């Protein structure tokens, strides 16, 4: 315990350019620890009290002795904070809970606790009209979380290195020339916590069965967290949930747990992907509710399409602004061969596999038709042409109604009454009982879409890590150098473009059946209904270009958040724009950083001396704890 405090004091005066730890509030270390733990205890205790008199506030916070609604958020955040704090304080046997031993995780989780608690308290007062509606429990919670946050601020926090006195800040513009402004700005920059370069013990030294157990536990917990969030019935609760989840991830990342988990999954690739798929399969069973299953299908569809777009944008670096049209091509193809009475070939009904192939093939043909003349050009031409193509597709489809043009697509009315799919005699339109579970229509389609998603993920990963995938990335990095290495830029780009298009087409065939009808209107560049080109592009950028899970996560977030926060409805596009700007400014690599980005850290770790002693006790403690 004492070694750390002297350490921290010594580190506070380190030279510029080196990593350092410093506290925001000067308090003796033990007092800070006590304050933090006290804050945790008080926050936890407060959730068992009543926070308000009336049941008018969402989630019923009137019950004493049992946390409910938003109180659960405070409870979970406080418990997590306590857990990483005990790890950071190196309590014997618990240090595996915080492998990086950074107090940053405590601070971030404390901030999450503070955020959700104060949000709740303020929301109660605002919604119900005044502080008079608060029970003592609410005040205890507010004070407890504040105490916790204050305690965390007094802990030694890992910070960005000191910057040179004469460092230049071009982002300040002309103001940067003023000495006090620059100095103030530098001080602000030095306040920023960082934990990116802290080494964590390699979890791969654990027994392989323990590793697998950890993977299963994490996936189960992830499924629980996901379903909990989707099950929230009020936007108030969902907002509190988002606060806790965001800070939770950030905090667990600072603790090094996410990095360890990543190492585990990389080490047990097959095992963890099977567990991941099993968790995804378990989703409709864990949430026996058609609305959530519907949400699940929609997320899988947009996620899969975003992943296809990721080949074009993320790997090859081609900006495609009309990508949603390929989804439309697939959907319309499937609708035409579905046996719908509104199809011009109403007698034709392809089995699903044939319809899926036809949809993918049609999209592929369109991809080649659009790509062949434009991919020879560099730069912005492609963006403009694809933007045009997206619009042309929608307008043409609208006009092929037998009046303005030949009757193919039934114009603006679209093709309705698309019959449900039947695969091997299993009718996806009807509910099926499996044991004590009932799989409804959307759950059936969810499972079908899951198969498609797995296929697309497989295609993406295999293509990305191969000769052709490397040439895509090479083209993205430097097209001139790539061609000088013997890569036929045009051909390779065309393959990427066509592959991306056909994956979207494939997803489109399922989406036509899920919605029972296809109409031209959703296939626009930008709109408030999800599958549009801007949405897909945002999902890729937000989630992380060039990664597998990034676009899927991005699509899920962009789809679910507006769904849950109904007050956003009018400002959705605005919020969307703000989110993109913030991401581009503060985390340009997206939520999930590319493996290549992580190599930078890997390199730092390899060349820089270890930041802190890495005792072996972590592993033995981990073994004992797990």
């Amino acid at each position, binding site marked *: 315990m004492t070694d750390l405090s002297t350490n921290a004091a010594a580190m506070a005066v380190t030279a510029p350019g080196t990593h350092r730890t410093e506290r925001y509030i000067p308090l003796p270390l033990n007092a800070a620890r006590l304050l933090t733990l006290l804050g945790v205890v008080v926050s936890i205790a407060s959730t068992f009290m009543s926070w308000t008199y009336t049941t008018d506030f969402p989630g019923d916070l009137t019950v004493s002795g049992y946390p409910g609604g938003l109180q659960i958020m405070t409870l979970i955040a406080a418990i997590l904070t306590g857990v990483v704090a005990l790890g950071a304080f190196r309590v014997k046997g618990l240090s595996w809970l915080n492998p990086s031993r950074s107090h940053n995780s405590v601070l971030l989780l404390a901030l999450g606790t503070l955020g959700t608690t104060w949000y709740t308290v303020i929301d109660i007062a605002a919604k119900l009209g005044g502080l008079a509606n608060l029970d003592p429990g609410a005040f205890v919670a507010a004070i407890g979380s504040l105490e916790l946050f204050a305690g965390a601020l007094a802990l030694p926090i890992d910070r960005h290195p000191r910057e040179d006195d004469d460092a230049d800040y071009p982002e300040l513009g002309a103001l940067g020339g003023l000495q006090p402004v620059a100095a103030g700005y530098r001080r602000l920059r030095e306040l920023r916590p960082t934990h990116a370069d802290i080494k964590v013990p390699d979890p791969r030294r654990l027994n392989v069965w323990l590793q697998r157990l950890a993977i299963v536990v994490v996936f189960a917990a992830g499924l629980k967290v996901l379903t909990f969030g989707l099950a929230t019935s009020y936007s108030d609760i969902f907002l509190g949930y988002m606060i806790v989840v965001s800070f939770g991830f950030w905090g667990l990342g600072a603790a090094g747990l996410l990095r360890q988990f990543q190492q585990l999954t990389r080490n047990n690739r097959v095992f963890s992907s099977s567990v991941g798929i099993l968790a995804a399969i378990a989703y409709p069973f864990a949430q026996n509710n058609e609305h959530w299953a519907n949400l699940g299908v929609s997320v899988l569809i947009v996620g899969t399409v975003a992943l296809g777009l990721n080949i074009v944008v993320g790997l090859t670096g081609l900006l495609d602004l009309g990508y949603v049209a390929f989804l439309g091509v697939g959907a319309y193809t499937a609708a035409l061969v579905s046996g719908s009475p509104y199809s011009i070939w109403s007698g034709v009904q392809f089995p699903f596999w044939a319809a899926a192939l036809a949809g993918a093939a049609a999209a592929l043909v369109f991809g080649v038709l659009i790509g062949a003349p434009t991919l020879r050009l560099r730069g912005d031409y492609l963006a403009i042409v694809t933007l045009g193509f997206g619009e042309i597709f929608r307008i043409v489809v609208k006009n092929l109604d037998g009046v303005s043009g030949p009757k193919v697509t039934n114009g603006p009315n679209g093709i309705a009454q698309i019959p449900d799919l039947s695969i091997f005699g299993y009718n996806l339109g009807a509910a099926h009982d499996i044991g004590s579970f009932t799989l409804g229509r959307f759950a059936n389609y969810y499972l079908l879409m899951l198969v498609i998603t797995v296929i697309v993920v497989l295609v993406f990963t295999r293509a990305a890590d191969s000769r052709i995938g490397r040439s895509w*990335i090479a083209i993205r990095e430097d097209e001139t150098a790539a061609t000088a290495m*013997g890569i036929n830029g045009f051909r390779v780009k065309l393959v990427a473009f066509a592959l991306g298009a056909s994956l979207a087409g494939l997803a489109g065939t399922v989406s036509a059946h899920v919605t029972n009808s296809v109409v031209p209107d959703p296939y626009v560049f930008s709109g408030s209904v999800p599958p549009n080109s801007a949405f897909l592009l945002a999902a890729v950028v937000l989630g992380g270009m060039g990664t597998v899970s990034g676009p899927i996560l991005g699509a899920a977030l962009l789809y679910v958040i507006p769904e849950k926060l109904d007050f956003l409805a009018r400002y959705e596009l605005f919020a969307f724009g703000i989110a993109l700007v913030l991401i581009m400014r503060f985390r340009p690599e997206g939520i999930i950083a590319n493996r290549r980005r992580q*190599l930078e850290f890997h390199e730092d770790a390899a060349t820089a001396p270890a930041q802190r002693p890495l005792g072996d006790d972590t592993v033995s403690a981990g073994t004992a704890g797990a």
Partner: protein
Amino acid sequence: MTTTIPHQPTPEQAPDGGPLLQASGVIMRFGGLTAVRDVDLTVNTGEIVGLIGPNGAGKTTFFNCLTGLYVPTEGTVSYQGTVLPSKPHLVTKAGIARTFQNIRLFANMTVLENVLVGRHTRTREGLLSALIRGPGYHRAEAASRARAMELLEFTGLAAKADHLARNLPYGEQRKLEIARALASEPGLLLLDEPTAGMNPQETRATEELVFAVRDQGVAVLVIEHDMRFIFNLCDRVAVLVQGEKLVEGTSEVVQQDERVVAAYLGEPFEGTPGDGPTTTGEQENDR
């Protein structure tokens, strides 16, 4: 440094000593500016040929004409007797590989991946085989990796195979460019200022590297401002001034030529290559 460069000579390699590359009457005009005027140049198998000239003489432009990056206004470039198409990837496929004056690595790929991209023309696997991943695919991929690792070994970068290219120090980035170019199993390697920005030790190492490359049967055409490097290395040197080839000959001939001295060196080049500090001041003002 290992001396066994893992090079499998290109099948239809010309007999030893024959002309490998033959550029005749190459003219490159940019609007009113003629960057390359009627230049003839031959590189024979097993030769190291130097190309020197003051800044802006048109050396890089000439390289770009050779490798299909520019379509020469006039003139032809033939390799092993066949006229080269003006498509960079076909030129590489034919057996000419190059590096760039301003390093053009794939910055966000790893060192190994950079070299693997260089193997592109010597491997066949398309998208389908990548998706199916049959035994043939795994064999080809493993062979490619093994060969890339050999090249990294050869250039002394093996320990950094997993690092991002952009995180390498400058000298190693230049080496990686050479390794990447060699990965395409060229018969002729074009190096555009391979030692620019290097310290004397690194320059020496590069010199040895170029010799080792030549010893494996790869002809080298090298642009350089470092005279000592050039005169140490080259069997023949051509001097380009204002787009025109002024002189061509052995190091001695070129060093003694008054026009070269006047146009380029400024003062007589003292001493034989390799003794004492001579023209090192010359290339400092280059960048």
